[in-house]
């Protein structure tokens, strides 16, 4: 049997048949390595998709570049501190468009409803969608509604399409990070995932935890206005957390990213719940912050522009992009040593002790 040859052999190789590969697992949706493998082995090859995985796609039309994205929302509980499945759907879709350096123009919305869902819930969620869309200034222009029998879905699922137009001067791509780039984070991390966990009654936690779900398109517009093509990459770290997003950017661009743990803004209640449940804030989902890789000569200007917006008030520099080791993310720890930050593997579970 051979030892792993070198650090470059990052591809998962498994000659031994794995258990549990014949059904879809919860971890396949967690935003981490498991999901990446499902996409890479089952979905993208079959659909003929190649190249880096972006948040939104540029269409080849006779127009200033049009971008389109799609997303599904299945969050449970459907109402939580800081939002609900409706507002989440609007913000999540708008953010996918924004992460490509684009201005959102329209949304579509499909409902998949379970028989027995209270109409009061449906009204509340739809009102929330309307309010969120109005606040963003983007209309919901098309939609669909389907109902399935009791037990065939968990209450309500939403699917959206987002359509946007590239901002002038924006050349954002997940694969564009370059050595020397500054890593900027727009705000506190770990809020959404911990708020959802705390809202799960069966764990019994309550507290000053609320989702950070918010639209980031104005923040992005301000960043592009200040930095133009110097804003190389943008990503909103949703499921899988900041660690997974940074790993995706490092892998897509074949660069190294180093962050400093003491610079990460983790709110006290988030840190506490993570401590209690054995979670790493770097792997907890977010819905209202973004990470950017910006050329060093424009980084200060972009950071200043971020801090002038409501969504980016707590923006700060958290690290740097280097050349080696390519594809890896590392962190300087509190006591001054260095460790590798991996993508989330599988599903997060509360620990035993």
């Amino acid at each position, binding site marked *: 049997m051979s030892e*792993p040859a070198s*650090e470059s052999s990052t591809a998962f190789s*498994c000659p031994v048949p794995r*258990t549990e590969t014949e059904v879809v697992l919860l971890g396949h949706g967690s935003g981490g390595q498991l999901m990446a493998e499902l996409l890479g082995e089952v979905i993208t090859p079959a659909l003929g998709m190649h190249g880096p995985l972006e948040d939104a796609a540029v269409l080849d039309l006779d127009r200033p570049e049009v971008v389109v994205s799609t997303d599904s929302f299945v969050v449970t509980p459907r109402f939580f501190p800081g939002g609900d499945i409706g507002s989440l759907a609007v913000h999540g879709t708008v953010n996918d468009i924004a992460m490509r350096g684009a201005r959102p123009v329209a949304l579509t919305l499909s409902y998949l409803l379970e028989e027995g869902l209270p109409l009061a819930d449906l009204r509340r969620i739809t009102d929330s969608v309307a309010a969120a869309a109005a606040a963003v200034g983007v209309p919901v222009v098309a939609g669909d509604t389907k109902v399935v029998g009791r037990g065939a879905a968990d209450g309500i699922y939403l699917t959206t399409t987002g359509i946007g137009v590239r901002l002038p001067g924006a050349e954002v791509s997940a694969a564009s990070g370059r050595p020397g780039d500054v890593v900027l984070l727009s705000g506190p991390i770990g809020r959404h995932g911990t708020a959802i966990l705390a809202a799960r009654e069966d764990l019994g936690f309550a507290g000053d935890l609320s989702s950070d779900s918010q639209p980031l398109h104005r923040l992005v517009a301000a960043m592009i206005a200040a930095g133009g093509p110097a804003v190389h990459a943008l990503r909103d770290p949703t499921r899988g957390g900041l660690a997974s997003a940074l790993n995706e950017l490092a892998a897509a661009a074949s660069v190294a990213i180093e962050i400093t743990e003491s610079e990460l803004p983790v709110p006290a209640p988030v840190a506490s719940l993570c401590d209690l449940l054995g979670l790493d804030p770097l792997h907890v989902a977010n819905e209202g912050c973004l990470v950017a890789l910006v050329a060093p000569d424009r980084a200060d200007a972009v950071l200043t522009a971020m801090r002038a917006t409501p969504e980016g008030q707590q923006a700060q520099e958290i690290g740097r992009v280097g050349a080696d080791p390519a594809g890896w993310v590392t962190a300087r720890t509190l006591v001054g040593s260095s*460790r590798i930050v*991996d993508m989330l*593997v599988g599903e997060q579970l509360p*620990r*035993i002790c």
Partner: protein
Amino acid sequence: MKYLAEYRDPELARRLLGELRAVATQPWAIMEVCGGQTHTLVRQGIDELLPAGIRMVHGPGCPVCVTPLEMVDKAVAIAGRPGVIFTSYGDMLRVPGTTGDLLGVKARGGDVRVVYSPLEAVRIAAEHPDRQVVFFAVGFETTAPANAMAVLRASRAGLANFSMLVSHVLVPPAITAILDAPDNEVRAFLAAGHVCAVMGFTEYEPIAARYRVPIVVTGFEPLDLLEGILMAVRQLETGRAAVENQYARAVRRSGNPAAQAAVAEVFEVTGRAWRGIGPIPASGLRLAGAFTDFDAETRFATGTIAVRENPECIAGAILRGTKVPTDCTAYRVRCTPRTPLGAPMVSSEGTCAAYHNAGRRPSTVEES
């Protein structure tokens, strides 16, 4: 949280490291017993900052990791039975058994639920009188009082549908088993802070005296660990072998009498097999007296199960501290937190998971 952040101060950490460098004149191997301590050491990279010669040996301090394979297989068998609600702490869901894990049972439609506290399992039993509710009681002495309370509550409420699959283990017998091993190189121990918060540390005094090893009751934050290591090294350098308490803010010599009383009422000491190590006499707990009615092994008559460990997994050596995860041929290749071959890769306190999540690679270790 108060009393946590202060113990992560980088400046104080640097001072402790400086003091360690000044005090240590020869190599020493020190074992930390608790998985939570291993996790902090590895995640913060503390073990890589210690003066050359001070080697931290990671001990079997992860109750998930040492739960016998047979017990995991019994859990999987029981959880798969119709009508059973199987409840457990989260980590146990992905521990690999001979044919699968609890998460697999859940994926195939079994009612497997994660609970934060054993009292949740009792509540579920009260809410579902028509279902059998089983709780997987795994842990060291730290969780025994909680599990005892669950049994007492169920007993008082007359919940005949509640039962417990018990696999409790005790720390002091594990320490003596490590010390008795012919190839043992460990010269001092950091005892588990929260185990001692419950049990006190009187049990360690005869061990320190008999084997001439310093034992320092230590907390879990970076400064706690560094101070505990410093106290151990000071003793080693001066030829002392006493029990000291670094974690005085939480641990008293006699421990928590109320908790100990509850454990003594519900459980009794028994021999237990430790996965990867083997049977250790008087090293575990089982339900005692009238409470044996709540024993899931009896209630479900699982009988003997033929067990088969993955041949490539070196969990035993990992748990005894004779090897580290980067020595393993499967580490990061065929064995990852998602596709674990053994328990230490599953639990957030397992040594292999700690190494994996800190990104340790074999080449990294060779460089230092």
